[in-house]
């Protein structure tokens, strides 16, 4: 069985892919689906309970909670995916250059990665947001800066495997330029592995971005974002505790789906990992 067949036969993985795609579609089409404007306060109906008009009720300013959760997908999940994409892009560029050129360039890039990775990533993010100041763009930049070095290192070791293959050697002998070999021959070889690595980490990125927003360092009010919504819910916890549930559950479901999917992908890649060796009992 190849990788895709193994992944397809894993029901949990299919369910997770379904959940993730569904959430993404809901996020993209939020303007069409959401029953209300997520930013429009309406103090007459504040703290309304569940009804047909407001399926999840309203918050302290009378804004529709369902609409805010739906629009929050754009600010939480889509943002996390974009962050992931840029991180991978930068990591891939440095990783491929390091793995292909070897020698001094490789040495330089890898030592830089060593220093960056000697920080725990949580601390790195805090450091960069601290320097640049609070804000959505800065939170994303911090996430990228904290993670690219790790990907550069992983991608470098992937590239090293390919770099000695005969077709790369042939390309070199026949006089292809280095950039042509890296872009046309090495990148397609490693792209699958890169995507797998990224899936494992997306849940983590979602948690970090919403934690930053919760602390007030990321997305700023009144933008609907799940971490931000929880931060607002905290202030009215004693009177309206139910406000904590929708954004919290949303984060949990999406992160769990990414985590499960990451595990399934890993199992599908190394099927031996799951099969026990002969055990005598």
């Amino acid at each position: 069985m190849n990788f895709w067949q193994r992944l397809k036969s894993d029901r949990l993985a299919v369910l997770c892919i379904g959940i993730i795609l569904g959430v993404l579609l809901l996020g993209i089409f939020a303007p069409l689906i959401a029953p209300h404007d997520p930013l429009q306060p309406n103090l007459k109906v504040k703290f309304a309970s569940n009804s047909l008009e407001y399926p999840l009720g309203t918050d302290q300013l009378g804004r529709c909670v369902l609409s805010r959760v739906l629009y929050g997908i754009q600010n939480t999940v889509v943002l996390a995916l974009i962050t992931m994409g840029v991180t991978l892009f930068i990591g891939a560029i440095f990783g491929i250059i390091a793995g292909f050129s070897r020698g001094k360039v490789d040495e330089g890039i890898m030592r830089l990665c060593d220093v960056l990775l000697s920080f725990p990533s949580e601390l790195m993010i805090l450091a960069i947001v601290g320097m640049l100041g609070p804000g959505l763009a800065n939170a994303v930049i911090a996430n990228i800066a904290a993670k690219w070095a790790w990907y550069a290192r992983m991608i470098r070791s992937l590239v090293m495997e390919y770099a000695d293959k005969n077709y790369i050697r042939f390309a070199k002998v026949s006089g292809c330029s280095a950039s042509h070999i890296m872009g046309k021959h090495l990148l397609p070889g490693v792209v699958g592995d890169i995507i797998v690595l990224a899936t494992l980490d997306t849940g983590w990125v979602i948690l970090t971005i919403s934690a930053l927003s919760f602390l007030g360092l990321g997305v700023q009010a009144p933008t609907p974002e799940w971490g931000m919504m929880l931060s607002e819910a905290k202030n009215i916890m004693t009177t309206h505790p139910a406000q904590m549930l929708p954004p919290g559950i949303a984060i949990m479901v999406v992160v769990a789906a990414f985590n499960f999917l990451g595990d399934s992908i890993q199992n599908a890649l190394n099927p031996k990992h799951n099969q026990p060796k002969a055990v005598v009992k």
Partner: protein
Amino acid sequence: MRKYILQRSLAIVPLLLGISFFAFFLINIGPSDPAEVALRVNETVATKEAIASMRMELGLDKPFFARYGTWLTASLQGDFGKSYITKRPVFDEMSKAFPATLALAGISLLITICISFFVGVWCAVHEGSIGDKIVRGFIFIGTAMPSFWVGLLFMWLFAVKLNLFPTSGMDGFQSIILPAVTLSLTYICTYMRLIRNAMIQNQQENYVLYARVRGLKERTITKHIFKNSLQESLIALGMSIPKLIAGTVVVENIFAWPGLGRLCITAIFNRDFPIIQAYIVMMAVLFIVCNLLMDIICAFLNPRIRQGG
């Protein structure tokens, strides 16, 4: 063994230099001029002359590497400059907040170790049982729940609803329980999984087969497996002690715990650069030293490493 420790200790010197340079560099590439920030936060009008004199006062008129040298030698002596806001030495502010964070992280670590080792080993021994399955479900939910949400739910249930613990602040032993449990939850999930998987993998090694063939008791075999799985878990634990301290940032902010994390977040909002800088350097040094200690402990436990190194 002594040679190994010496080698490892020397290897961290360039790393420490790199990190100190990085922390210093970050402040200087920031979009805001520290001199201007220092004036703004004190609500002084930032005229050109005021900025110029503040630059002199902070030594910003000197070249970059000269400033780095001055800062590094001062930092090595524990002088991280003065806070822009309170005008008190950063070192004093940090040492005032440090015990609170240390207590929180220490108790969380204790909870984490006790629960995760016990449950992890139990799950590996009873692999596939109902209890194991429940724990695995709990692990997956636990790793997906953001700690700030867990903190809020705990606060609502135990402090607001049941009124067992205070909601926030540092006031006696009772107030540390909620933040410590919240903080340790993520780590408990990670370690339970780690220990369980390490033990299950070890069960398939040849030495276990040999022990079974010799007819040793299951209890003795479990003990062997546990010892062999310990190394991997210890390394991860060493790596995560600084992470735990860095992770206090979120929890301290929820429960208004007067520790380093809260100090750092307040400093970020106030653009109080010297405090942020000192916090970063301190955490990074802590991280490296913990890694070094864990490497040495592992070398004690496993002779193969120290002979190879």
